[in-house]
């Protein structure tokens, strides 16, 4: 144990010192990316630079990133099916909390909508709006709300798939004039990005919410908990 602490201490100290050295010794960069972003902004279809980078200049990164999110859900679904659980019981079912939620929920939805719409000209966008949506779902569930419609597997999966499929679909359709993948025509870039963001928001919200929901629930009696048995040491 002590050996491990000392080793870890030395290693992380070494890494930190090396990093510090790297920060001190760095050269002045030749390339100026912010300038390039600024000069390409008029063609991006949006006014907020971060949204332009995320959904136009470097939209391929965003595409793959959505795939990463989906992957987490796929694994959760797979493991859930491998060890089926009983229908879950969760939530506090507190009337006060419910009353608060009834007020809070529409507010949250409005905030999500605003964040999404705002993303084209000021901070905000699909990820923020999606996570606010997910937060609404989490709160609803903690309050004992009924999210039964999420148990409709087909609907849930369609919602999960919507964002990425739309993204890829639009990326492909715009290629028809003979331009590379994800090249939005200047005239429609703003609209296309908005459509992508809208579907992404929904899917991201659902994805994040499913990550929360798909964790195995509490088992009610310990007897059925050990479906697999402990491994031999």
């Amino acid at each position, binding site marked *: 144990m002590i050996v491990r602490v000392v080793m870890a201490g030395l290693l992380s100290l070494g890494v930190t010192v090396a990093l510090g050295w790297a920060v001190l010794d760095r050269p002045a960069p030749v390339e100026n990316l912010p300038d390039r972003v600024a000069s390409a902004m008029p063609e991006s279809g949006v006014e907020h630079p971060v949204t332009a980078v995320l959904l136009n200049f470097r939209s391929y990164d965003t595409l793959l990133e959505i795939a*990463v999110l989906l992957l987490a859900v796929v694994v959760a679904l797979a493991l859930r*099916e491998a060890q089926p659980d009983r229908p879950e019981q969760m939530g506090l079912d507190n009337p006060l909390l419910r009353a608060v939620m009834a007020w809070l929920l529409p507010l949250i939805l409005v905030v999500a909508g605003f964040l999404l719409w705002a993303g084209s000209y000021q901070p905000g966008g699909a990820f923020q709006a999606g996570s606010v949506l997910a937060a609404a779902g989490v709160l609803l569930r903690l309050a004992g709300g009924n999210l039964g419609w999420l148990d409709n597997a087909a609907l849930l999966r369609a919602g999960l798939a919507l964002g990425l499929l739309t993204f890829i679909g639009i990326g492909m359709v715009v290629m028809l004039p003979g331009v*590379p993948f994800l090249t939005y025509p200047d005239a429609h870039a703003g609209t296309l990005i908005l459509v992508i963001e809208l579907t992404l928001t929904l899917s991201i919200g659902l994805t994040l919410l499913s990550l929360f929901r798909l964790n195995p629930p509490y088992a009610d009696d310990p007897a059925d908990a050990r479906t697999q048995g402990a491994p031999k040491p």
Partner: protein
Amino acid sequence: MIGLWSVPLLFALPLSLGILSLLVVPKWRPRLIFLGLPLLAAASLDVLAGLATVGPTVYRLGDWAAPLGINLVVDGLAVGMILMTTLVTSLCALYAWVYLRDHPSSTTFFWPLLWFLWAGMNGIWLAEDIFNLYVGLEVMGLAAVGMVALRATPQALAAAMRYLLAALLGSLAYLLGVALLYGAYGTLSMAGLQEAATNNATTQVALALIILGLLLKTALFPLHAWLPPAHGGALTPVSALLSALVIKASFYILMRLWLVLGPEVTPEFTAQFLGVLGAGAVFYGGWMAWRQHHLKQLVAYSTVAQIGYLFLFFPLVTNTGPEAARLAWDGTLMMLIAHALAKAALFLSAGNLILAVGSPQISHLVGISRFRPMSLFSFGLAGVSLMGLPPSGGFTGKWLLLHSAILSGQWWWLIVLFLGGLLSAAYIFKVFRMSFREGPQIDRSVTPPLTLDVTALILASVAILIGLTAHLPLHWLRMGSVFGVG
């Protein structure tokens, strides 16, 4: 524009199929391969045709030039890896289509994971942007972890967890290296970095972090501890994919970045050090493989050993003169491809043998040669390539590396090549000795479906054939690299 459609299809198609396979009923999930495999094969061949006619190109996603946008590089190396991936993954997918029939329905989630894995790998082969590589690594890594966890037994879960922790730590080290490089040079494009990078502490630390992170993901000795449980314990087609392809992706990034940044920045001892670690992997992995009692664990440790050969690339390519460097490049890539084919074949045929005797123990293979000659034949062919016997791809690769070592006067690597071959022979023959021994243990065996044997045999045969016709693929692989003619 060459590959206008086929290049993006290489990742967009598997992604779409991955989503689609979530939407269809479980019974239909495997059947999507009959849509996907031909299309992906066509796209891969189209990219190859473009390379052969026009030469290496750059694909500008969104029509933005790097460094503002993300570019994809379609050179010989990328296309070679894409073709290798298409071949190996297709055969593993066919194998899995039959193999998973007898498994619980939760294993049908193999299919979405497979498509995402494929998309991640193709994304990595094509990437030219170092941050995009990070995202690609995550797509591939999380899909791979999910595949290991698929069995949902405690052992599988522990292996997946260990794998995940290693993968996450590796990605973070890589990401921090990227952060330093961006801070220093203001660009994420490899071409831009190659122009801008100078020799200073920032580049060195960044490269060190990137190397460490990728070594962990490649499972180079002594950072290999996560590999044997993950690769040895997974479902057979998963083991084959992970050992054949996934660990190659992080090595591939290392190779590319080394050629972009390495020679100017790194002191020669770093290259020698990587070579020494490789040698350690060859010896340790071979020794451990020989000591295993479980067939798939043996094959997994064999991967630990074979990774070591790839790392001889670094000492042989750094400051050694053009001819030796070119031979090192050729030899390493030949080893990489031969190992991908042979290891996939070895895992698949090992899986067939296990199915046949119903036990993962090597000692239970006694007498199996009479019942499953074809599985054993594939195992043997793949073994020939791993041992480096002529005329296999493994032999050609080692031969090229050997020449490179002699030309650059680094004779000590010859010992590694020679002893490593002996160790591989030892563990391969360990399996054979048991299989040919006559004993009372079994008098009958289960007959696995023919598809399982045929896919393994095809992979093993290609591992041999590629050694006979190495000239053309090696010529293609050099296109667009510093070793290419045009």
